[in-house]
């Protein structure tokens, strides 16, 4: 019986050249034997013109063995919301979430599938990012990791549907941490596949990783929401107070966003709370290096 893989990516006003390279990589993907591959692009941009270009590029470079679908959402659903909408289109065996700011080799899916097959406790597996490998820790013996980055994470379709995908209350950032903890609460595991490498467009400056304005704001708002969802009220208050004391411009914005999102937030169950870990600076992972 042929198994299905859905490779999903959510766009928002992408830069033309990097989108073109991304589409070329998608079109060149090798389909693992016994599988059917569908590339699903969801577009949260204000206008659908980029998507038309994406479809044209895909047909230009694409392999006939890969199906391609394109959805223009007409609204900005955020990362998790967009991925959930795309996953509702079918019931694949595996769901691979991919950021459009990535570049990868054709065997990416093959390596991830090879890793996932035969692991009965498989929930999610993520690819190794370069040139800046993700700073969170992973176990070198059994390849487990506390959570998987959504930049390139392959979910078991069944597990994804059981946990009902990403929590749409998170707009950007930390939704991958949340879904990973919920997957682990089911008794499934998060894995790190070193064999599958993916180039993630990140840059390093003399003072650390370069973060855009959106990451600066949404990353913090996502973290606050994560603390709230997992019942870390004291840490939540401390982080907000720290922002207020330091006269951080994001304080008012974050308060507004939390007030807006909180009603839609599904609070974590006791089993899910047991999976949650917060470390220095309230981060959900220990950093392997100092940036």
């Amino acid at each position, binding site marked *: 019986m042929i198994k299905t893989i859905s490779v999903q990516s959510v766009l928002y006003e992408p*830069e033309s*050249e*990097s989108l073109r*390279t991304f589409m*070329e*990589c998608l*079109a*060149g993907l090798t389909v693992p034997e016994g599988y059917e591959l569908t590339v699903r692009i969801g577009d949260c941009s204000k206008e659908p013109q980029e998507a038309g270009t994406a479809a044209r590029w895909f047909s230009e*470079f694409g392999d006939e063995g890969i199906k391609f679908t394109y959805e223009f959402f007409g609204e900005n659903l955020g990362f998790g919301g967009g991925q959930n909408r795309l996953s509702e289109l079918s019931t694949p065996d595996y769901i691979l979430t991919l950021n459009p700011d990535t*570049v*990868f*080799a*054709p*065997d990416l899916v093959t390596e991830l599938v090879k890793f996932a097959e035969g692991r009965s406790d498989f929930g999610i597996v993520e690819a*190794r990012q*370069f*040139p*800046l*490998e993700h*700073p969170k820790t992973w176990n*070198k013996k059994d390849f487990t990791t506390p959570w998987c980055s959504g930049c390139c994470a392959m979910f078991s379709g069944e597990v994804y549907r059981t946990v009902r995908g990403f929590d749409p209350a998170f707009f950007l950032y930390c939704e991958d941490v949340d879904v990973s903890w919920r997957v682990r609460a089911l008794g499934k595991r998060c894995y790190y596949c*070193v*064999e599958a*490498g993916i*180039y993630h*467009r*990140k*840059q*390093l*400056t*003399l003072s650390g990783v370069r973060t855009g304005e959106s990451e600066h704001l949404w990353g913090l708002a996502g973290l606050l929401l994560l603390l709230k969802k997992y019942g870390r009220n004291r840490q939540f208050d401390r982080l907000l107070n720290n922002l207020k004391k330091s006269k951080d411009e994001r304080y008012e914005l974050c308060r507004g966003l939390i007030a807006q999102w909180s009603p839609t937030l599904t609070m974590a169950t006791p089993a899910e709370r047991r999976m949650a870990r917060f470390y220095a600076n309230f981060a959900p992972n220990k950093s*392997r*290096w*100092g*940036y």
Partner: protein
Amino acid sequence: MRPTGTKLDLFVGELQRLESHEESTAGPDFSILIRTVGNRNDLLREALLSVMAQTHQSFEVLLLFHTPDDPSPPLEGLQSLIRQFPARFAAKVRLIVVTRPGRSAPLNDGIEQARGRFVCILDDDDLLYDHHFESVSCAVKANPDQRVFQTYSSRRLISVHDKASNATFPYSVDRIETAYTDPFDEAKQLRENFVPSCNFVFSRDYANALGLRFDESLEVLEDWKFLMDLNRLAQVVTVPEITTAIGARSNQTNTVEHPALKELWKRNRQLIQRQLAAAPRLMGAKEMASIVTVLELSEELNMELCQMKRPIRQIERWFFFFLYHVASPFVRVFRRAIVRGNRR
């Protein structure tokens, strides 16, 4: 009348060659030279992906397959690797076989065959951040008369994952840190190399006009010598951005750290220093000031050391005086007493 054969004649001659050299107009903005010996294609693939990801796409890739021991090497491995890439990128890659010995040979062949306005180098275990060409391109636009540019780098300490078989892949990173992030300083650079090969970009026309090539007699540090040759007439413009990631392996297989290569490293370093001291160079006022500062500092340190040594010498003198005049009579008395005691 000015005597002939002076340093000035050398510079005038080189400047005349530069002026008479016709600038090439065709070709992409950058030629990137990637040398490989073909034994770590997995790492090379990641290096190529990092080139493909560049936001500035006017470039060509010269993949220099170095096989000095095999005049007709099997090319299937590298050819199939190139075919894995999308056609638009694969069309930019040229596979060139270099059979001449020496680490510098592939780089020199690469410069000969390059068509880009600027040339840069990448080893097969190094990576580019996606703004490398864009950052240099902006610097070129801002400094149209300059010929040599330098960027900064980060270092990835990569652990060999399968230690039992010493497999070179898969790699994971144990540590990421910034490295080589100082602006170019000619005076400092004369002493040691602070700019890795992947961090300097030079005009092909400039190198060709002066006939500059990597020294093929050097077994290591060939990039240091070449950069200093480029720097003899041209200023090096620093682009203060981290645009490359150098791979350092934890199993000491880097040429820099390999214990067996330490002696070779030292020998080549001394050789280059002698060559640099022998060749005349144009030095800017800033560099001269830097050398004067270093000399002054060294003089001051020397003075301070002398002043520190004076009281130490005084203490030493007193100590020996005490030992000879005060302590030794007592020692003698004790020795006699012990000898007498033994006789009884």
